[in-house]
């Protein structure tokens, strides 16, 4: 009964005209940016975040999350039609989706992707509604010790599963944690790392960090790859899939949903890993694995369902524990904090309309996406052909106005410019920037819990080994580090030997 009552609160909030509008804008923008290669959800959300500050928190969050899961839909459209992932989680969809399009089944590939994603989105929404309260109950038992251990685990896992070098990822998390400490210290009020500047006392504006590292760095990286694109436009006579294709897609979608839902829950999991995992599973269980890569329906349907399910269940750790599992979730936490809502298990109790409204809006948004996606394909085809030189000045200007609007001053723009240079350096060094953002968001919280835990124990570090929960989480984190580092050390030594010989 509780469950139904909660959903009732949620739908009441989500079905208001304002929130429906923002949900619609969110999924529309999300689909558009998912379709545009070179513009990902992280950069777009950073760009639009300041503009949501004026809105009610629910409306802002509904729009941001719409952009996130909308981008999963849009990304697959580009993957199928151009063989180019519009969004990183759509890499797998290129393999078989584009082959289907080349075999003249573009329409049915798009339909399979859309319906598979809708099924996955519905299931994942129900899972979030069912499991979040349970997980939040557990989170209520957490003290500072457990919170600290959980953040260590969350950051480790997020870095581990993100692509790129693990050790550089950890260094990026640490860099983020340090940058997050700039400003007034919570306990003593001392200004740290402000270099005597009053502008830094409130800390570094996190939107400026996100825009510099993602939106602007992406522009620099993409500016020279501005080419016309070859689009396999579907003929609209065969937009519907055949009965045989439907049967071929059904089980992969169910399996993909299951895989995505589980992997999305893990810190660092989410859309991309889910789609890779699902593709691997489908290829393994298929009776005709040789068809994969030549337009196998299962190879498209499974990963498409998986990436959407993963994108959605990755909200669960953010909503219940206040731990971001990827860059987008870190931005959502930042958005909550702007509205003075402390992310974590208390959100569900103190602001039920936000929590349940967001969940209800996800289902509504997914339904909108199916209705929206198929008829608008001609428009999306045009959008893929938009040149990057038109796009990036627009991104720059919208970002600058957004940065200015946060506090009606230009300082955040200067910070963003600085972080652009830093982001370009990281890009050159092949250091993934997302872990830095996670660290930046969690830095102050982590320090607070760490200090509080040691205050309670009178300076005895053994407190982290006394709580069974904390021991469990810290050992999982340690085991994960070892698993990754051991082969690297061995390989590194072998390579060193080869070089010497």
């Amino acid at each position, binding site marked *: 009964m509780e469950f139904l009552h909660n959903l009732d609160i949620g739908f009441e909030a989500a079905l208001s005209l304002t929130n429906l509008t923002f949900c619609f804008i969110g999924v529309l923008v999300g689909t558009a940016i998912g379709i545009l290669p070179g513009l990902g959800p992280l950069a777009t959300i950073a760009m639009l975040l300041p503009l949501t500050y004026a809105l009610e928190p629910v409306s802002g969050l509904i729009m941001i999350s719409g952009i996130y899961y909308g981008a999963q839909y849009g990304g697959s459209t580009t993957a199928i039609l151009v063989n180019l992932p519009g969004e990183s989680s759509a890499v797998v969809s290129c393999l078989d989706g584009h082959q289907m399009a080349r075999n003249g089944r573009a329409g049915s590939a798009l339909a399979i992707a859309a319906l598979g994603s809708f099924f996955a989105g519905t299931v994942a929404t129900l899972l979030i509604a069912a499991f979040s309260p349970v997980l939040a109950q557990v989170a209520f038992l957490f003290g500072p010790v457990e919170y600290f251990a959980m953040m260590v685990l969350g950051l480790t896992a997020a870095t581990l599963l993100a692509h790129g070098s693990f050790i550089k990822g950890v260094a990026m998390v640490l860099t983020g944690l340090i940058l997050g400490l700039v400003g007034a210290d919570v*306990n003593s009020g001392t200004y740290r790392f402000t270099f005597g500047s009053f502008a830094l006392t409130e800390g570094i504006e996190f939107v400026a960090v996100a825009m510099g590292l993602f939106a602007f760095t992406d*522009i620099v990286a993409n*500016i020279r790859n501005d080419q016309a694109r070859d689009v396999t436009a579907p003929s609209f006579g065969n937009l519907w899939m055949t009965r045989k294709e439907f049967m071929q897609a059904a089980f992969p979608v169910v399996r993909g949903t299951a895989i995505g839902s589980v992997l999305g829950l893990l810190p660092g999991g989410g859309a991309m890993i889910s789609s890779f995992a699902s593709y691997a599973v489908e290829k393994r269980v298929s009776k005709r694995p040789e068809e994969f890569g030549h337009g196998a329906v299962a190879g498209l349907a499974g990963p498409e369902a998986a990436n959407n399910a993963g994108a959605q269940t990755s909200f669960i750790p953010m909503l219940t524990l206040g731990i971001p599992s990827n860059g987008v979730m870190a931005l959502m936490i930042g958005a909550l904090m702007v509205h003075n809502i402390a992310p974590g298990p208390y959100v569900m109790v103190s602001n039920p309309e936000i929590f349940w409204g967001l969940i209800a809006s996800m289902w509504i948004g997914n339904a909108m996406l199916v209705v929206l996606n198929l008829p608008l394909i001609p428009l999306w085809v045009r959008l893929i052909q938009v040149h*990057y030189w038109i796009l990036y000045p*627009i991104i720059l200007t919208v970002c600058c106005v957004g940065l200015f609007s946060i506090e009606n001053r230009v300082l955040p723009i200067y910070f963003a410019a600085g972080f652009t240079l830093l982001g*370009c350096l990281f890009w050159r*060094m092949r250091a993934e920037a997302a872990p830095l953002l996670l660290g930046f968001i969690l830095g102050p919280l982590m320090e607070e819990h760490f200090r509080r835990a040691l205050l309670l124990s009178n*300076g005895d570090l053994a407190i982290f080994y006394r709580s069974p929960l904390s021991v469990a989480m810290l050992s999982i984190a340690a085991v994960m580090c070892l698993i990754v580092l051991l082969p690297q050390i061995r390989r590194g030594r072998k390579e060193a030997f080869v070089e010497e010989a």
Partner: protein
Amino acid sequence: MISKLNGRADVEAGILFTLFGILTAGLSLQYRLGSIATMGPGMFPLILGTILAILGLVILTKGLLARGEKSKSLPLGPVIMITASLLVFAFLVLPVGLVAAIPAQVVIALWASEHFTWKRAAALSAGLLVFCYVVFVHFLGIAVPMIAV
């Protein structure tokens, strides 16, 4: 030897992280450290900076020993132009207003692309000015000056 190390991603990253870690640790010494039980504001950054410096050295060593990935070549022109376009916007928006800030930003940013023409820059600026006025100033009510007087 030096030329062989040049352009190795791990070597560059290792140096950057080590320096940043040392800088952080060094700067945090000016704040009160306190004891483990009652930590002062300097303790946590000192710990983080130290770990980061060590990790940086590990990455650096790894980069020196193994033939790691090459660093990507950074297009210097776009880096400077895009950053400059941000600075110019910040510099012009309050004293002159969006009418100057947007065209200046668009021209400088577009200069970085091989598709630059004055006509395109003018068209984009005009479109963006209208868009910003309608959406940001009119609908969202952001207090950004179109023309500062």
